[in-house]
């Protein structure tokens, strides 16, 4: 099993609050990702990073921000939570391949289930 951790696992919060979802991996992977997923549904990439100090927005428009100051840490922040943010947030990491187009195995964390009231 991969060593990638997410906290909190569950979060219930009121509208307008600022929240940070934590993600850490101990595998030394350069690439990290954040996905948003409603139960049993499609994975939507919201942010990714291919190394320290590099972050990119994904395919799904998101009001969240991310940072990558350390290789192992990739937190996601919502400045002002809204009910539309209610979902599961999955963090993943992967190695970098030899080619920049390589697709390496992604290891997913257990996820954070967020409920915004």
């Amino acid at each position, binding site marked *: 099993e991969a060593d990638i951790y997410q906290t909190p696992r569950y979060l219930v919060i009121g509208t307008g609050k600022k929240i940070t979802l934590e993600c850490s991996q101990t595998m030394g992977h350069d690439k990290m990702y954040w996905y948003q997923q409603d139960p049993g549904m499609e994975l939507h*990439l919201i942010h990714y990073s291919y190394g320290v100090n590099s972050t990119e927005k994904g395919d799904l428009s998101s009001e969240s921000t991310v940072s990558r100051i350390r290789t192992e840490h990739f937190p996601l922040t919502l400045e002002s939570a809204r009910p539309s943010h209610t979902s599961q947030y999955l963090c993943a990491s992967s190695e970098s391949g030899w080619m920049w187009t390589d697709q390496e195995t992604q290891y*997913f*964390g257990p996820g954070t289930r967020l409920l915004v009231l």
Partner: protein
Amino acid sequence: GQQVMQIPQYQHVQEGEDFTTYCNSSTTLSNIQWYKQRPGGHPVFLIQLVKSGEVKKQKRLTFQFGEAKKNSSLHITATQTTDVGTYFCAGPYTGGFKTIFGAGTRLFVKA
């Protein structure tokens, strides 16, 4: 933009029946991956296919990569209740750095 499409979206089977999910890409893929997500869980890597026409087996699961490297399939023989979950295929984005996931096929198995 680049797309990876999966069908069917849902499949209900009786335990013991076979199941197949299909994945089609809008572009030629250098490789394709398959993941399984159990209900309430997170996606877990199953396999990667790289070669044109490649076929790989894992016990009751058979994975195929098309000759043109634009489609793939996952076939489960004699489904069991432990096979329940969502199966995702995924291909590399041609622009690099990220992965394009299919929408997934949700498998329900009735005992």
